[in-house]
């Protein structure tokens, strides 16, 4: 009852980065409980995945060969059976879109507490202390859970595990009840293509909900013109249909790394930051001095965009 079971994430034949990060998070917890770190890799080319995941700190890798792509029913069944076999104290999964499609079900099926989107985890062997954000990142909280628990971890919070490990690799013969599989993946589609590739731009003038109305967008367009820059945006602007999908920066949009990223009226929610934190220089224009974007900005103007943006445009006209 002191082991940790972590689950890898992959899509369309490739392991996702968080699969290596979860090894680091899991190893740390296993050290604190004095247990082993087990890693589960389910569906797809599991042997190839297991080889890649065999990094320092992993004690055992359990492969479940069933189907090519992610299916939450298969994952839920495989993980609950592995849980019964290994009796770990903690189950860790990525807080990815797929993680959120099975982790709560695993917790419910096993009658365990669940804590999601953690950015820090610590244990004395009995109590799990999970750090997570609330209110769109305005505050952080610590939460205590006693006994066993399921926790999902936020991507890019733990460093990726490195080195070559000597984990045992075993095929786990999960008994998947096909009748209980109630959803079928029929395909994938890439969205957000088109003529503009914001990930190529040197300077991005990026607009968020602070712009309030579609009619105010010309303000941003004029600035982008004056700077010879490209326009990008946060999600609500695309959700509202004010800009096309290929302008969206973030987790479900594009990852961008321009020389300069100017975030105008963008709060800096984690899903947005995931797409732009690699920018060389980040400038934030925001009326809220406590907006989470300030935590990653290099330069900030705490002021009304409707005053600052026209003044900036003027500078270059």
């Amino acid at each position: 009852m002191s082991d940790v079971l972590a689950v890898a994430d992959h899509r369309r034949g490739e392991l996702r980065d968080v699969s290596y990060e979860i090894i680091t998070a899991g190893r740390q917890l296993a050290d604190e409980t004095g247990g082993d770190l087990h890693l589960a890799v389910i569906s797809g080319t599991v042997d190839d995945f297991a080889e890649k995941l065999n990094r320092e700190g992993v004690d055992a890798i359990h492969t479940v060969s069933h189907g090519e792509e992610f299916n939450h029913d298969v994952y839920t069944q495989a993980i609950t059976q592995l849980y019964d076999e290994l009796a770990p104290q903690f189950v860790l999964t990525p807080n990815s879109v797929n993680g959120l499609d099975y982790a709560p079900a695993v917790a419910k099926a096993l009658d365990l507490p669940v804590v999601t989107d953690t950015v820090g985890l610590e244990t004395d062997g009995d109590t799990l202390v999970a750090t997570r954000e609330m209110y769109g990142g305005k505050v952080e909280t610590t939460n205590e859970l006693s006994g066993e628990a399921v926790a999902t971890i936020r991507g890019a919070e733990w460093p990726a595990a490195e080195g070559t490990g000597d984990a045992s690799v075993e095929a786990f013969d999960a008994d998947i009840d096909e009748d209980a599989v109630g959803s079928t993946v029929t395909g994938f589609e890439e969205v957000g293509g088109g003529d503009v590739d914001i990930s190529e731009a040197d300077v991005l003038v990026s607009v968020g909900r602070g712009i309030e109305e579609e009619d105010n967008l010309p303000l941003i367009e004029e600035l982008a013109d004056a700077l010879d820059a490209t326009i990008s945006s946060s999600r609500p602007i695309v959700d509202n249909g004010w800009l096309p999908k290929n302008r969206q920066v973030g987790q479900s949009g594009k990852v961008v790394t321009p020389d300069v990223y100017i975030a105008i009226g963008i709060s800096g929610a984690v899903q947005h930051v995931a797409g732009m934190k690699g920018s060389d220089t980040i400038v934030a224009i925001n009326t809220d001095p406590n907006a989470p974007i300030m935590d990653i900005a290099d330069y900030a103007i705490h002021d009304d965009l409707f005053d600052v943006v026209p003044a900036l445009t003027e500078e270059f006209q």
Partner: protein
Amino acid sequence: MKILVTVKEVATVEDEFEIEGTAIADQYLGADLNEWDDYAIEEAVQLQEDGIADEVVTVTIGPEDCEQTIRQALAKGADRAVRIWDDSLEGVDLLDVNAKTEILSAVIEEEDPDLVLTGVQAGDDSFGATGVSVAEHLGYQWGAVVNHLEHDLDDGVASVRRELEGGVEELTDVELPAVLTIQTGINEPRYASLRGIRQAQRKPLDVQGLDDLGVDDSAVDSDLELTDMYEPESESDVTVWEGGAEETAAELGDLLRDKGVAP
């Protein structure tokens, strides 16, 4: 077909705020309809307008104060609402996923809908887990982070798109009854019309306690104990430019010229 939509009134925080103990001091908090639930309500109402749903019911766990938010959902077209509240919920500072699952599941069992729509996440505590947890608990099928739903639902199957990371969408068929967690952008939520707002006042809003639902008081004991709340530390050394818009714009202008990225 009957559709049930879970609707949360979320807490919003003012720009400047103070933390008292493990909560934000009351005077800095506001309330709003959860953004993700707004899209879920719209999707349900559109299914009704398309002749696929006969009834749209909303469910909210929350105190009397949140009836304004519930009326908003009714004004947008839901037929009736259920609100769950109980003395035993009064002092609870964090309703965790398992507690919400117990309570919402009891209502869903009573209402027996074909389709349950929740938001992907609540904007305030953002567990992003309640919908899938409820589905597993009830033996419903599910799909998380849905940004498209085909409006035919023929043969008891919902054809959806799940929005994955990096601009990839997964096309999935989900058997009914099912819980779908709805992502923003799936539709364009309407504003309530004046007529809708008037009608909402007359629509049924039924209040139930845990006893009425046959849920034990112990169900609301949270597995999670909130032990600390604080403002996150800054990861960067931010330079804040002070002064009027002209001055700060000039500073930014200089930076852009220094970086060689501006004309």
